[in-house]
Protein backbone atom coordinates (compact mmCIF):
# COMPACT_ATOMS: atom_id res chain seq x y z
CA UNK A 1 0.00 0.00 0.00
CA UNK A 2 1.25 3.42 -0.82
CA UNK A 3 1.19 5.77 2.12
CA UNK A 4 0.22 9.33 1.30
CA UNK A 5 -0.67 10.87 4.62
CA UNK A 6 2.87 12.02 5.50
CA UNK A 7 2.87 14.47 2.61
CA UNK A 8 -0.14 16.27 4.00
CA UNK A 9 1.30 16.00 7.49
CA UNK A 10 4.44 17.74 6.22
CA UNK A 11 2.43 20.56 4.69
CA UNK A 12 0.32 20.89 7.85
CA UNK A 13 3.44 21.08 9.99
CA UNK A 14 4.95 23.73 7.71
CA UNK A 15 1.75 25.76 7.89
CA UNK A 16 1.86 25.45 11.68
CA UNK A 17 5.49 26.58 11.64
CA UNK A 18 4.64 29.55 9.46
CA UNK A 19 1.66 30.62 11.56
CA UNK A 20 3.15 30.01 14.98
CA UNK A 21 6.59 31.24 13.98
CA UNK A 22 5.28 34.50 12.56
CA UNK A 23 2.42 35.29 14.92
CA UNK A 24 3.92 34.74 18.36
CA UNK A 25 5.29 38.11 19.43
CA UNK A 26 8.79 38.88 20.54
CA UNK A 27 9.42 39.61 24.20
CA UNK A 28 10.31 43.17 25.16
CA UNK A 29 13.88 44.28 24.64
CA UNK A 30 16.23 47.23 24.78
CA UNK A 31 17.66 48.47 21.51
CA UNK A 32 20.02 51.14 22.71
CA UNK A 33 21.17 53.02 25.80
CA UNK A 34 22.77 56.42 25.58
CA UNK A 35 25.36 57.30 26.76
CA UNK A 36 26.95 53.88 26.52
CA UNK A 37 29.80 54.75 28.84
CA UNK A 38 29.90 56.96 31.89
CA UNK A 39 31.60 57.59 35.21
CA UNK A 40 30.21 56.50 38.55
CA UNK A 41 28.68 59.22 40.68
CA UNK A 42 25.28 60.76 41.47
CA UNK A 43 22.76 61.95 38.93
CA UNK A 44 23.84 59.96 35.88
CA UNK A 45 21.17 60.23 33.23
CA UNK A 46 20.50 57.60 30.57
CA UNK A 47 18.11 57.54 27.67
CA UNK A 48 16.72 54.13 26.79
CA UNK A 49 15.06 52.93 23.57
CA UNK A 50 12.96 49.81 23.87
CA UNK A 51 11.55 47.32 21.39
CA UNK A 52 8.08 45.81 21.92
CA UNK A 53 7.94 47.59 25.25
CA UNK A 54 4.92 49.32 26.82
CA UNK A 55 6.54 51.60 29.37
CA UNK A 56 3.54 53.88 29.79
CA UNK A 57 1.19 51.06 30.72
CA UNK A 58 2.75 50.35 34.08
CA UNK A 59 2.44 52.41 37.25
CA UNK A 60 5.86 51.54 38.53
CA UNK A 61 8.86 50.43 36.50
CA UNK A 62 12.03 49.02 37.98
CA UNK A 63 15.04 50.25 36.03
CA UNK A 64 18.10 48.39 37.30
CA UNK A 65 21.78 48.41 36.39
CA UNK A 66 23.50 45.14 37.26
CA UNK A 67 27.23 44.45 37.54
CA UNK A 68 26.91 40.94 38.95
CA UNK A 69 24.59 38.98 41.22
CA UNK A 70 25.59 40.95 44.29
CA UNK A 71 25.91 44.41 42.78
CA UNK A 72 22.75 45.99 41.41
CA UNK A 73 21.42 49.51 41.65
CA UNK A 74 17.88 50.84 41.14
CA UNK A 75 17.28 54.09 39.28
CA UNK A 76 16.58 57.05 41.56
CA UNK A 77 13.91 58.33 39.24
CA UNK A 78 12.73 57.76 35.71
CA UNK A 79 10.61 59.56 33.19
CA UNK A 80 8.58 57.73 30.58
CA UNK A 81 8.61 59.60 27.26
CA UNK A 82 6.69 57.05 25.23
CA UNK A 83 6.01 53.33 25.19
CA UNK A 84 9.40 52.85 23.57
CA UNK A 85 11.46 55.50 25.25
CA UNK A 86 12.35 56.53 28.76
CA UNK A 87 14.92 58.51 30.69
CA UNK A 88 16.37 57.19 33.94
CA UNK A 89 18.63 58.85 36.50
CA UNK A 90 20.97 56.69 38.55
CA UNK A 91 23.04 57.45 41.63
CA UNK A 92 25.91 55.14 40.80
CA UNK A 93 27.98 53.98 43.77
CA UNK A 94 31.75 53.54 43.45
CA UNK A 95 32.86 50.36 41.72
CA UNK A 96 33.21 47.45 44.18
CA UNK A 97 36.55 46.20 45.52
CA UNK A 98 38.55 44.15 43.05
CA UNK A 99 36.77 45.54 40.01
CA UNK A 100 38.69 46.49 36.86
CA UNK A 101 39.03 50.15 35.96
CA UNK A 102 35.94 49.89 33.80
CA UNK A 103 33.15 47.36 34.10
CA UNK A 104 30.21 46.51 31.87
CA UNK A 105 26.79 46.74 33.47
CA UNK A 106 23.59 45.06 32.30
CA UNK A 107 20.44 47.13 32.06
CA UNK A 108 17.24 45.48 33.26
CA UNK A 109 13.75 46.97 33.06
CA UNK A 110 10.70 45.19 34.47
CA UNK A 111 7.84 45.08 33.88
CA UNK A 112 8.49 46.30 30.37
CA UNK A 113 5.74 44.64 28.38
CA UNK A 114 5.00 40.95 28.40
CA UNK A 115 8.10 40.40 30.51
CA UNK A 116 11.49 41.74 31.46
CA UNK A 117 13.68 43.69 29.07
CA UNK A 118 17.39 43.03 29.38
CA UNK A 119 20.40 44.47 27.54
CA UNK A 120 23.68 42.75 28.46
CA UNK A 121 26.81 44.94 28.58
CA UNK A 122 24.66 48.02 28.07
CA UNK A 123 26.87 50.56 29.78
CA UNK A 124 30.57 50.66 30.56
CA UNK A 125 31.19 52.21 33.98
CA UNK A 126 34.38 54.00 34.96
CA UNK A 127 35.42 55.12 38.41
CA UNK A 128 34.25 58.75 38.84
CA UNK A 129 35.24 61.45 41.36
CA UNK A 130 32.01 62.43 43.08
CA UNK A 131 30.69 60.74 46.20
CA UNK A 132 27.45 58.93 45.80
CA UNK A 133 24.51 58.36 48.03
CA UNK A 134 23.56 55.14 46.23
CA UNK A 135 24.64 51.68 47.33
CA UNK A 136 24.96 48.30 45.64
CA UNK A 137 22.26 45.79 46.54
CA UNK A 138 22.08 42.08 45.70
CA UNK A 139 19.92 40.94 42.80
CA UNK A 140 17.69 38.89 45.13
CA UNK A 141 16.07 42.15 46.26
CA UNK A 142 14.31 42.46 42.95
CA UNK A 143 11.58 40.11 41.83
CA UNK A 144 12.21 39.91 38.07
CA UNK A 145 9.24 37.98 36.80
CA UNK A 146 10.07 34.82 34.95
CA UNK A 147 8.12 35.40 31.78
CA UNK A 148 5.08 33.20 31.56
CA UNK A 149 3.33 34.59 28.50
CA UNK A 150 3.98 33.09 25.08
CA UNK A 151 6.77 34.88 23.25
CA UNK A 152 10.12 34.36 21.58
CA UNK A 153 13.19 35.80 23.30
CA UNK A 154 14.51 39.18 22.18
CA UNK A 155 18.17 39.21 21.10
CA UNK A 156 19.74 42.52 20.37
CA UNK A 157 21.19 42.17 16.88
CA UNK A 158 18.75 39.51 15.77
CA UNK A 159 15.45 41.13 16.83
CA UNK A 160 12.59 39.66 14.78
CA UNK A 161 15.00 37.73 12.59
CA UNK A 162 15.34 35.19 15.41
CA UNK A 163 12.36 33.62 13.65
CA UNK A 164 14.73 32.55 10.89
CA UNK A 165 15.68 29.68 13.18
CA UNK A 166 12.57 27.89 11.88
CA UNK A 167 13.51 28.43 8.27
CA UNK A 168 17.25 28.84 7.75
CA UNK A 169 18.46 26.59 10.58
CA UNK A 170 15.68 24.03 10.13
CA UNK A 171 16.56 23.84 6.42
CA UNK A 172 20.11 22.79 7.29
CA UNK A 173 18.87 20.06 9.58
CA UNK A 174 16.44 18.88 6.89
CA UNK A 175 19.32 18.85 4.37
CA UNK A 176 21.33 16.55 6.64
CA UNK A 177 18.40 14.15 6.90
CA UNK A 178 17.77 14.16 3.14
CA UNK A 179 21.45 13.65 2.31
CA UNK A 180 21.57 10.93 4.98
CA UNK A 181 18.65 9.21 3.25
CA UNK A 182 20.53 9.52 -0.04
CA UNK A 183 23.52 7.76 1.53
CA UNK A 184 21.31 4.99 2.95
CA UNK A 185 19.89 4.38 -0.53
CA UNK A 186 23.43 4.21 -1.91
CA UNK A 187 24.29 1.55 0.69
CA UNK A 188 21.16 -0.35 -0.27
CA UNK A 189 22.17 -0.17 -3.92
CA UNK A 190 25.61 -1.60 -3.22
CA UNK A 191 24.00 -4.37 -1.15
CA UNK A 192 21.35 -5.36 -3.66
CA UNK A 193 22.42 -4.07 -7.06
CA UNK A 194 18.86 -2.93 -7.83
CA UNK A 195 18.99 0.23 -9.93
CA UNK A 196 15.95 1.72 -8.19
CA UNK A 197 17.97 2.40 -5.09
CA UNK A 198 20.61 4.25 -7.07
CA UNK A 199 17.96 6.40 -8.75
CA UNK A 200 16.55 7.17 -5.31
CA UNK A 201 20.00 8.11 -4.01
CA UNK A 202 20.41 10.42 -7.00
CA UNK A 203 17.00 12.05 -6.47
CA UNK A 204 17.59 12.60 -2.74
CA UNK A 205 21.03 14.05 -3.43
CA UNK A 206 19.50 16.51 -5.91
CA UNK A 207 16.96 17.69 -3.38
CA UNK A 208 19.61 17.77 -0.65
CA UNK A 209 21.72 20.08 -2.83
CA UNK A 210 18.68 22.25 -3.53
CA UNK A 211 17.99 22.62 0.19
CA UNK A 212 21.68 23.25 0.85
CA UNK A 213 21.78 26.06 -1.73
CA UNK A 214 18.64 27.54 -0.17
CA UNK A 215 20.35 27.26 3.21
CA UNK A 216 23.36 29.19 1.93
CA UNK A 217 21.35 31.95 0.21
CA UNK A 218 18.94 32.43 3.11
CA UNK A 219 21.96 32.45 5.39
CA UNK A 220 23.54 35.17 3.24
CA UNK A 221 20.45 37.34 3.52
CA UNK A 222 20.36 36.85 7.27
CA UNK A 223 24.08 37.52 7.57
CA UNK A 224 23.86 40.71 5.49
CA UNK A 225 21.39 42.06 8.01
CA UNK A 226 22.97 40.90 11.26
CA UNK A 227 26.71 40.68 10.65
CA UNK A 228 26.70 43.47 8.07
CA UNK A 229 28.18 41.35 5.27
CA UNK A 230 26.56 38.66 3.18
CA UNK A 231 29.72 36.59 3.00
CA UNK A 232 32.28 37.03 5.75
CA UNK A 233 34.32 33.80 5.26
CA UNK A 234 32.93 32.55 8.50
CA UNK A 235 34.11 28.97 8.93
CA UNK A 236 30.61 27.51 8.83
CA UNK A 237 29.76 29.45 5.67
CA UNK A 238 32.96 28.27 4.04
CA UNK A 239 32.41 24.69 5.07
CA UNK A 240 28.82 24.75 3.85
CA UNK A 241 30.03 26.00 0.47
CA UNK A 242 32.65 23.23 0.37
CA UNK A 243 29.97 20.68 1.23
CA UNK A 244 27.95 21.89 -1.74
CA UNK A 245 31.07 21.53 -3.91
CA UNK A 246 31.47 17.92 -2.77
CA UNK A 247 27.95 17.08 -3.82
CA UNK A 248 28.21 18.99 -7.09
CA UNK A 249 31.27 16.84 -7.75
CA UNK A 250 28.97 13.86 -7.23
CA UNK A 251 26.82 14.98 -10.15
CA UNK A 252 29.89 15.73 -12.28
CA UNK A 253 31.14 12.24 -11.53
CA UNK A 254 27.82 10.68 -12.48
CA UNK A 255 27.55 12.58 -15.72
CA UNK A 256 31.08 11.66 -16.78
CA UNK A 257 30.50 7.89 -16.71
CA UNK A 258 28.61 6.44 -19.66
CA UNK A 259 27.87 2.91 -18.56
CA UNK A 260 24.70 2.80 -16.43
CA UNK A 261 25.85 0.07 -14.08
CA UNK A 262 29.33 1.47 -13.60
CA UNK A 263 27.93 4.94 -13.02
CA UNK A 264 25.58 3.65 -10.35
CA UNK A 265 28.36 1.75 -8.59
CA UNK A 266 30.89 4.58 -8.64
CA UNK A 267 28.25 7.14 -7.74
CA UNK A 268 27.08 5.09 -4.78
CA UNK A 269 30.63 4.63 -3.50
CA UNK A 270 31.40 8.34 -3.81
CA UNK A 271 28.07 9.32 -2.25
CA UNK A 272 28.82 7.30 0.88
CA UNK A 273 32.33 8.74 1.01
CA UNK A 274 31.00 12.28 0.51
CA UNK A 275 28.48 11.98 3.32
CA UNK A 276 31.18 10.67 5.63
CA UNK A 277 33.40 13.69 4.91
CA UNK A 278 30.42 15.99 5.42
CA UNK A 279 30.28 15.18 9.13
CA UNK A 280 33.77 16.49 10.01
CA UNK A 281 33.19 19.35 7.58
CA UNK A 282 29.99 20.66 9.12
CA UNK A 283 30.20 19.55 12.73
CA UNK A 284 33.80 19.00 13.81
CA UNK A 285 36.00 21.58 12.09
CA UNK A 286 33.72 24.61 12.76
CA UNK A 287 33.84 23.85 16.48
CA UNK A 288 37.63 24.28 16.48
CA UNK A 289 37.75 27.70 14.90
CA UNK A 290 36.24 31.00 15.97
CA UNK A 291 32.94 31.61 14.26
CA UNK A 292 30.11 34.08 14.20
CA UNK A 293 27.66 31.21 14.24
CA UNK A 294 26.52 29.88 17.59
CA UNK A 295 28.09 26.62 18.73
CA UNK A 296 31.75 27.45 18.18
CA UNK A 297 34.58 29.59 19.48
CA UNK A 298 33.01 29.78 22.91
CA UNK A 299 29.58 30.84 21.66
CA UNK A 300 26.67 28.93 23.14
CA UNK A 301 25.59 26.00 21.01
CA UNK A 302 22.12 25.26 19.77
CA UNK A 303 20.08 24.25 22.76
CA UNK A 304 21.89 26.71 25.00
CA UNK A 305 20.39 30.08 25.67
CA UNK A 306 19.73 30.64 21.98
CA UNK A 307 16.84 28.21 21.95
CA UNK A 308 14.30 28.56 24.70
CA UNK A 309 11.31 26.32 25.34
CA UNK A 310 8.87 28.38 23.30
CA UNK A 311 11.20 28.23 20.33
CA UNK A 312 11.60 24.48 20.69
CA UNK A 313 7.82 24.21 20.19
CA UNK A 314 8.29 25.52 16.67
CA UNK A 315 11.86 24.54 15.83
CA UNK A 316 11.56 20.75 16.11
CA UNK A 317 8.30 20.54 14.14
CA UNK A 318 9.88 22.86 11.55
CA UNK A 319 12.72 20.37 10.99
CA UNK A 320 10.21 17.54 10.54
CA UNK A 321 8.07 19.66 8.21
CA UNK A 322 10.95 20.67 5.94
CA UNK A 323 12.26 17.10 5.88
CA UNK A 324 8.85 15.74 4.87
CA UNK A 325 8.48 18.36 2.14
CA UNK A 326 11.98 17.57 0.88
CA UNK A 327 11.15 13.86 0.89
CA UNK A 328 8.03 14.52 -1.14
CA UNK A 329 9.93 16.49 -3.76
CA UNK A 330 12.63 13.81 -3.81
CA UNK A 331 10.02 11.10 -4.40
CA UNK A 332 8.66 13.06 -7.35
CA UNK A 333 12.18 13.44 -8.74
CA UNK A 334 12.76 9.71 -8.28
CA UNK A 335 9.59 8.85 -10.21
CA UNK A 336 10.71 11.15 -13.02
CA UNK A 337 14.18 9.57 -13.10
CA UNK A 338 12.69 6.09 -13.10
CA UNK A 339 10.38 6.79 -16.04
CA UNK A 340 13.23 8.51 -17.87
CA UNK A 341 15.43 5.46 -17.31
CA UNK A 342 12.74 3.09 -18.59
CA UNK A 343 12.16 5.24 -21.66
CA UNK A 344 15.86 5.47 -22.37
CA UNK A 345 16.33 1.74 -22.16
CA UNK A 346 13.54 1.33 -24.74
CA UNK A 347 14.98 4.09 -26.93
CA UNK A 348 11.87 6.20 -26.53
CA UNK A 349 13.65 9.46 -25.79
CA UNK A 350 16.81 11.29 -26.73
CA UNK A 351 17.10 13.08 -23.41
Amino acid sequence: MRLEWWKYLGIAILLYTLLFGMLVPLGPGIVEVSPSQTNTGPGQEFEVWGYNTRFSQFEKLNVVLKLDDNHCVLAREYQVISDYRLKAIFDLPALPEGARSSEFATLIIYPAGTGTAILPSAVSLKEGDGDSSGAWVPESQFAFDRNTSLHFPYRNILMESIRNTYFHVALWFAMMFILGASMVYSIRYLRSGLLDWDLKANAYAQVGILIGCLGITTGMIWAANTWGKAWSWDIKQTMAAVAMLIYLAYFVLRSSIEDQEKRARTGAAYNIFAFATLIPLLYVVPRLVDSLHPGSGGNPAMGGEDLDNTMRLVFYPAIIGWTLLGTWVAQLTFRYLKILYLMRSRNLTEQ
Partner: protein
Amino acid sequence: MVRHLELYLAHLKNGFRSFYKMRISRVLSVIMLVFSTQLLWGQSQTLDYYRNSGKIYVVVAVIVLSFLGIVLFLINLDRRMRKMEKDLNQK
Protein backbone atom coordinates in the same frame (compact mmCIF):
# COMPACT_ATOMS: atom_id res chain seq x y z
CA MET B 1 -1.82 50.21 -33.48
CA VAL B 2 -3.21 47.48 -31.26
CA ARG B 3 -1.92 44.86 -33.63
CA HIS B 4 1.52 46.39 -33.45
CA LEU B 5 1.42 46.34 -29.72
CA GLU B 6 0.36 42.72 -29.73
CA LEU B 7 3.17 41.83 -32.06
CA TYR B 8 5.61 43.69 -29.88
CA LEU B 9 4.37 41.90 -26.77
CA ALA B 10 4.62 38.51 -28.49
CA HIS B 11 8.13 39.39 -29.56
CA LEU B 12 9.02 40.32 -26.01
CA LYS B 13 7.54 37.10 -24.72
CA ASN B 14 9.51 35.01 -27.21
CA GLY B 15 12.69 36.85 -26.40
CA PHE B 16 12.08 36.24 -22.74
CA ARG B 17 11.50 32.55 -23.36
CA SER B 18 14.60 32.06 -25.46
CA PHE B 19 16.58 33.92 -22.84
CA TYR B 20 15.32 31.57 -20.17
CA LYS B 21 15.94 28.54 -22.31
CA MET B 22 19.64 29.09 -21.92
CA ARG B 23 20.52 27.44 -18.63
CA ILE B 24 23.47 29.67 -17.82
CA SER B 25 21.53 32.87 -18.20
CA ARG B 26 18.85 31.48 -15.91
CA VAL B 27 21.38 30.70 -13.22
CA LEU B 28 22.98 34.09 -13.72
CA SER B 29 19.69 35.93 -13.41
CA VAL B 30 18.90 34.13 -10.15
CA ILE B 31 22.32 35.07 -8.79
CA MET B 32 21.84 38.68 -9.91
CA LEU B 33 18.43 38.77 -8.26
CA VAL B 34 19.86 37.52 -4.98
CA PHE B 35 22.74 39.96 -5.00
CA SER B 36 20.70 42.98 -6.01
CA THR B 37 18.23 42.38 -3.20
CA GLN B 38 21.16 42.05 -0.83
CA LEU B 39 22.60 45.34 -1.94
CA LEU B 40 19.27 47.06 -1.47
CA TRP B 41 18.82 45.68 2.01
CA GLY B 42 22.37 46.30 3.03
CA GLN B 43 21.94 49.97 2.27
CA SER B 44 19.04 50.73 4.57
CA GLN B 45 20.73 49.81 7.80
CA THR B 46 19.84 52.73 9.98
CA LEU B 47 18.90 52.29 13.58
CA ASP B 48 15.56 54.08 13.23
CA TYR B 49 14.52 51.72 10.52
CA TYR B 50 15.35 48.71 12.65
CA ARG B 51 13.50 50.14 15.60
CA ASN B 52 10.34 50.34 13.55
CA SER B 53 10.48 47.08 11.66
CA GLY B 54 12.60 44.91 13.96
CA LYS B 55 14.18 43.32 10.86
CA ILE B 56 11.00 41.39 10.13
CA TYR B 57 11.68 41.83 6.41
CA VAL B 58 14.69 39.53 6.77
CA VAL B 59 12.37 36.76 7.93
CA VAL B 60 9.93 37.45 5.10
CA ALA B 61 12.77 37.38 2.56
CA VAL B 62 14.09 34.10 3.94
CA ILE B 63 10.67 32.45 3.86
CA VAL B 64 9.90 33.70 0.36
CA LEU B 65 13.28 32.57 -0.91
CA SER B 66 13.03 29.08 0.56
CA PHE B 67 9.56 28.48 -0.87
CA LEU B 68 10.56 30.06 -4.17
CA GLY B 69 13.56 27.77 -4.42
CA ILE B 70 11.46 24.65 -3.95
CA VAL B 71 8.78 25.91 -6.34
CA LEU B 72 11.40 26.68 -9.01
CA PHE B 73 12.77 23.16 -8.61
CA LEU B 74 9.26 21.77 -9.08
CA ILE B 75 8.64 23.95 -12.13
CA ASN B 76 11.88 22.69 -13.65
CA LEU B 77 10.87 19.10 -12.91
CA ASP B 78 7.49 19.76 -14.47
CA ARG B 79 9.15 21.12 -17.60
CA ARG B 80 11.45 18.11 -17.89
CA MET B 81 8.49 15.78 -17.49
CA ARG B 82 6.53 17.56 -20.19
CA LYS B 83 9.44 17.12 -22.57
CA MET B 84 9.48 13.42 -21.71
CA GLU B 85 5.75 13.11 -22.34
CA LYS B 86 6.17 14.76 -25.71
CA ASP B 87 8.81 12.19 -26.66
CA LEU B 88 6.50 9.43 -25.50
CA ASN B 89 3.60 10.71 -27.61
CA GLN B 90 5.73 11.08 -30.71
CA LYS B 91 6.89 7.48 -30.79
